[in-house]
């Protein structure tokens, strides 16, 4: 059985799943940038002391599932969401959804995701895809980061839905209920609440390693990495930073561009000139994230390596923090009509 479903490619998996699932129930207005902005998708945290893949834990995104949840909440669309302890029940529930005509979002781990190239398969459990049908033993998959649709056998899908380790998906499945209609006013309100929430998360969480403060904190840490860790290890840490920052499904620079695109779209709903100005600030920040990645690559490729090079690297992040502090403060001060 194959549900009537249009595959759309997107820059970030959860935005894409959100947009496609909403489109499927007849809500066409929510583009990828709108889903990202209404879902308050920008985040930053550097978790000191903890390690993942033997490197620092740096996240550029909120917890998996939040973008979808917040976007639907803000638009007052009821959501069905479930996690499972039993693989059989998880599969039965999935089949029921499909039989009931609902394409569904699934949280999955990437390590056993057979259609990804091996080089990209890590124990990363916050990927999202859509299941929109089943033919023989194969589930039909719309993975938003892929150009085309693909498929997974029953066993393969079960394995990625029940991946183990940090943030294990536990078969998590979700979809928006049909029948909701969205007015322009609701979108306008959702944009404002999404921005306000993102401002709070980037400016007001009182830990030194979260939000804009966290970016500055990381910048200062990086300057010490060469002495503390040695050149080799420091290079590996920077490579990890770049992978977290720019790789599929995550994104530091890329996320800033999506947010900048969101603010441009927000302007069409709220014609406030500041939005366009602030959008440019996020473009500037995105460009600087990419410049920082080039500098990091110089170090992990061994072309650069002096303390001066690490200072430059750290200073890029501090400069980014300054720009984003200004941008979020400006967003905070907008007088919404």
């Amino acid at each position, binding site marked *: 059985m194959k549900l009537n479903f249009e595959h759309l*490619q*997107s*820059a970030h998996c959860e935005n894409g799943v959100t947009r496609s699932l909403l489109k499927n129930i007849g809500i066409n207005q929510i583009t990828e*940038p709108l889903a990202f902005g209404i879902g308050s998708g920008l985040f930053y945290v550097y978790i000191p002391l903890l390690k993942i*893949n*033997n490197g620092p834990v740096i996240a550029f995104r909120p917890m998996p599932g939040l973008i979808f949840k917040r976007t639907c909440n803000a638009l007052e669309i009821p959501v069905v969401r479930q996690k499972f302890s039993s693989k059989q029940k998880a599969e039965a529930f999935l089949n029921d959804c499909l039989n009931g005509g609902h394409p569904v979002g699934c949280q999955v781990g990437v*390590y056993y995701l057979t*259609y*990804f*190239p091996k*080089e*990209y398969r*890590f*124990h990363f459990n916050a990927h999202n895809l859509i299941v929109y049908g089943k033919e023989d033993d194969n589930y039909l998959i719309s993975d938003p*980061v*892929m*150009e*085309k649709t693909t498929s997974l056998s029953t066993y393969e899908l079960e394995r990625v839905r029940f991946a*183990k*380790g*940090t943030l*294990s998906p536990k078969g998590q499945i979700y979809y928006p209920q049909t029948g909701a209609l969205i007015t322009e006013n609701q979108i306008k309100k959702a944009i404002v609440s999404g921005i306000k929430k993102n401002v709070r998360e980037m400016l007001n969480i009182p830990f030194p390693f979260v939000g804009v403060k966290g970016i500055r904190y990381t910048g200062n840490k990086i300057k010490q990495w060469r002495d503390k860790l040695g050149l080799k290890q420091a*290079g*590996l840490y920077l*490579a*990890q930073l*770049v*992978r977290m920052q*720019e*790789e*599929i499904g995550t994104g530091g*620079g*890329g996320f800033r*561009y*999506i947010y*900048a*695109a969101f603010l*441009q779209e927000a302007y069409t709903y709220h014609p406030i000139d500041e939005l366009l100005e602030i959008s*440019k600030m996020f*473009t500037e920040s*995105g*460009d600087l994230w*990419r410049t920082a*990645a*080039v500098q*990091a*690559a110089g170090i*992990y*490729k061994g072309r650069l390596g002096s303390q001066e090079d690490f200072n430059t690297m750290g200073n890029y992040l501090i400069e980014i923090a300054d720009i984003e502090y200004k941008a979020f403060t400006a967003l905070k001060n907008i007088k919404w009509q």
Partner: protein
Amino acid sequence: MKKEDVPQDLSSLGKITKEVCYATDKSGKYVTELSKGWDIKITALDTHWEEIETRVSIARQKVLNNEASPLLFFMEKSLMDAEILAGYAGLWKWQVKRHLKPEIFKKLSDKKLQRYAEVFNVTIDDLKNINVHEA
């Protein structure tokens, strides 16, 4: 980033699918553009895999020196840590940590060994003798 600056360095992902990027057009408006990959990301990934290979060869040597059980080798090879392995094997993390010691691993029942063997997709004999079948 301007649309024409979206990098097009072919990555191993790029051979399978291009990635969507947001970038600005001539008028400064955001549009989407497909990217085949970016050299900076490719080398970050390569650096990571070189590190993994180093870790695997160190683990192999430790097993041969009887400083660690074969589990360490397979764990590193599968990019796992004790917690992830415990999850897949259906054991506790502290159990996995114990089983990383060669003297304790040697006393494990076939039933326990079978659990690990299934996770790594090898036979019990392969598990004991660190034989790998490249898929």
